[in-house]
């Protein structure tokens, strides 16, 4: 049994690698589906904004409120804006955005492509002359890859605003002082690695969702499983990429 599942895991990994390579081959093939890409960008980016925004706002607020007692203990209350700006921009806002998108977008893609697969719409598309991979997978993966960084930057801004409100619940930090201190603590080595890794987060979410949906089987039950595993694997992928990203950033001296 365990040997079987191990074999399945290996074959899954191999299929996935092939899927990724196929994505890059298909990406540069002619006849780009621009209209479909924009439509997917709208769904992935704009439609996730409210969810990501609320989450980021709450994260900024809560992080500030939670950090205050510890900093007060050290007599470093004035460092609150600096601390939350670094932790939000470097880590929390990108990862939270990616996880929210993995839940919302990844499951959506998995379920959508899975149901198209089991109802044989994909096969029909192939027959009618449209490249289903190009039309369905490339557009969705490109949409998540391009939109996640934008979402993450907006999440940064909203979370920092939440932090401003949080800092002013018990203490007093003026608007100007707060932003001066926030940007004082940040440098390009904080912002750029965090920004670049969100592209990879978006790519992982899109490619995992598409892979799980594209390889869905066993009828409607398979659709549910595709959606579910898409979320689980995408979330795990986000953390794995985060781990790799922090090591690379550390190696390159972006500390």
């Amino acid at each position, binding site marked *: 049994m365990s040997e079987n599942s191990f074999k399945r895991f290996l074959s899954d990994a191999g299929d996935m690698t092939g899927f990724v390579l196929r994505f890059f081959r298909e990406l540069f093939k002619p006849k780009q589906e621009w209209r479909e890409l924009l439509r997917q*960008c*709208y769904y992935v980016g704009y439609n996730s904004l409210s969810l990501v925004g609320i989450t980021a706002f709450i994260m900024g607020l809560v992080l500030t409120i939670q950090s205050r007692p510890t900093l007060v203990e050290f007599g470093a209350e004035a460092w609150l804006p600096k601390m939350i700006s670094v932790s939000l921009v470097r880590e929390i806002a990108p990862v939270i955005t990616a996880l929210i998108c993995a839940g919302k977008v990844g499951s959506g893609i998995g379920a959508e492509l899975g149901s198209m697969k089991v109802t044989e719409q994909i096969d029909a598309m192939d027959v009618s002359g449209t490249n289903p991979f190009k039309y369905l997978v490339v557009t969705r993966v490109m949409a998540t890859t391009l939109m996640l960084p934008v979402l993450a*930057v907006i999440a940064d801004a909203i979370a920092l605003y939440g932090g401003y409100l949080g800092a002013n619940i018990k203490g007093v930090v003026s608007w100007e002082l707060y932003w001066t201190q926030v*940007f004082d603590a*940040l440098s*390009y080595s904080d*912002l750029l690695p965090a920004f670049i890794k969100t592209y990879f987060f978006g790519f992982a979410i899109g490619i995992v969702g598409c892979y799980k949906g594209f390889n869905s089987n066993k009828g409607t039950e398979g659709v549910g499983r595709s959606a579910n595993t898409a979320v689980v694997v995408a979330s795990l992928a986000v953390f794995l990429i985060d781990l790799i990203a922090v090591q690379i950033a550390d190696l390159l001296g972006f500390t």
Partner: protein
Amino acid sequence: MEKEPNKNIKLGLFVIVGTAFLIIAMYFIGAKQNLFSRTFRIYVNFHNVDGLQAGNNVRFAGIDVGTVEAVDIQSDSSVQVSLIIEDEYKSYIKKNALASIGTDGLMGNKLVNINSSHDPGLSIEEGDVLASVHPIETDEMLRTLNKTNNDVSTIARNLRIITERVNNSNTLWSILTDPAVAENVKNAIVSIKITGERTAVISGDLSRIVASVRNGKGTLGALITDTAISHQIKQTIVKIQLVSDTMAYISGDLKYITGKIRNGEGAVGTVLMDTTFAGNLNKSVIDIRKATSGLTASMEALKNSFLLRKYFRKHSKAGK
């Protein structure tokens, strides 16, 4: 379903807002590192930079005016630090300003402080080298602190011994706790206070007296201040000296005379010193006494003679 153009507008807005946030963040972070303002470069040589790094702030009169661009070692005793300073502060920083390495707060980042000198000087220019002040090293501070700590511990040990002795000494405690002692001390203080007040009065009087003496009032004042009197006194003293000289001379004569008298020389000497003469004198006196007693008997006989009785009776009446 919404219309396609509407969705595109929303998507465009979304992307533009996101990009704008990113650009704003990058601008502010870059502005902090002086990437977008006109700057110039100056150098400072330090013996020890105490952990200063590229990107640390440069402060002039407490204002952030730039950043540290690079820290390069030049020799075993010299580290060159290049500083990027914003152009707008160029006219305020003089060539004779002093640079030192400090810390932002107690635990904060290292920074370079530029302190202006009181002396006049020319404005700084691109590529100038500022003089540096030796930074206060934490190690050195801790070494001094360690020494202080040892001293304090010695003092504390001595204090402990003293307090133990005080605690063990019943005499001292009984003195300290005895209310009578306290009362006495209180009284003594009151007395001291009264004495002090009196002393103040007396010293006031004294100072008044001294003042009047100085001004030549009263006898003493006159004596002390009048130059004529002091001259007279001087003359008197001279005369007294003269007299005493004469006296010494006289006493020398006297000594000579008494010496002679003792040796029986001269008439006085004979009278005082010759024993034969004294014996004769003694004999004469005895003879005189004998003669007077004979005379007394003759006088008694005379009183009783009728010839002279009347005279004696009259004489004794007149005596009464």
